[in-house]
């Protein structure tokens, strides 16, 4: 390898290392890497492949649900729980996959709803939609 080639390789190598280091430090890049589904989450791709009954639950405020929601979803949010849980109980049976969603990954209501359904109501299969309503809208449109 000539001296000229070594120089070019050295420059390229240094630039690559610097770029990787900057990427690791960039909060936007770290956020992307963190955005993998959690253990209790499901993705739209997994939902498409699911065989068996599904029940969608919308954990957003009532006004957001009224503006638009996943077809056939029922509302169940922490603020209106006592009024809304009855309709859920009336249709749920053991073996139904319950998928809870709210706006996006920053929304805590879907996890609060899912935890309560598992803990207090003994629902045996409850997951959260990764990316929430935002992910559904991106996949299927408004």
């Amino acid at each position, binding site marked *: 390898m000539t001296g*000229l080639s070594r120089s070019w390789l050295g*420059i390229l190598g240094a630039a690559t290392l610097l770029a990787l280091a900057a990427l690791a430090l960039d909060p936007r890049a770290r*956020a992307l890497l963190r955005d993998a589904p959690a253990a209790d989450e499901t993705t739209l791709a997994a939902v*498409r492949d699911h065989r068996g009954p599904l029940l969608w639950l919308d954990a957003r405020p009532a006004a957001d649900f009224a503006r638009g929601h996943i077809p056939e979803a029922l509302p169940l949010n922490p603020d209106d729980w*006592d009024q809304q849980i009855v309709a859920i109980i009336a249709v749920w049976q053991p073996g139904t996959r319950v998928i809870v969603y709210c706006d996006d990954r920053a929304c*805590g209501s879907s996890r609060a709803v899912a935890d309560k359904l598992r803990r*207090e109501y003994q629902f045996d299969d409850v997951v959260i939609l990764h990316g929430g309503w935002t992910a559904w809208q991106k996949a299927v449109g408004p």
Partner: protein
Amino acid sequence: MLRLVLTPPCLRAAIAAVCLATAVPVRAALTWETQEQRFKLSADEASAQTRFGFTNTGSQPVSITEMLAGCSCAAATAAKRTFAPGERGEIVVDFKRGNREGEYRQGVTINTDDGVSTTLWFVADIEVLVRFDPRYVFWTATEPRTPKHMRLTFAAGHQATLTAVDSSDPQFRTTFTPAGKAASAVDLTIIPPATASNFTILTIRFRLDGSDADRELTAVARTLPAKNEPVKTGAKPQP
């Protein structure tokens, strides 16, 4: 002159400078003191407030363009929107618990005009006044219709006296112990009807810590229909 600029050492140095400049992306200008806050609420507290401090460590002014909370329970505000280099600021988040209890985690997204979007997280540890174990009992179609139990445990330091349990469907009967005296936990027994599929809402009335005022909570019991009856199938996204 052109020959001097185009000599291999100068050319290599120029290309290295371009590579270095493009390899290092622009750093976010707002540096946060923390991006997660935790706080507690007792069963009697309806709201709480938490703060996220930051400093503009960039060389240009930065403006906050949006503050988005993903629930109606939280609202984010700032005293001003534009921060000069070196200036410190705070985002104040007001949280209203509503009917939430237990651990509740929520993000608040802050967008700034330098193209950066930051999610701030708060975790509210809300005291659970009454813990149900469980809150819904059911019998499958093939299961014997023997009584089932719910235990209600009141938060540490609290005692309650159960005064009544009403069932919306009188075919479900209930008993509870202890009856007529304050306790830190109460056991509720639900006796289902022998046949048919039914559904009942149980309204549980109790008095907390010697108060004369009745409080109410609801629980549910159901005898499920046979599995060959139609079940709800949810929508699926089309590929």
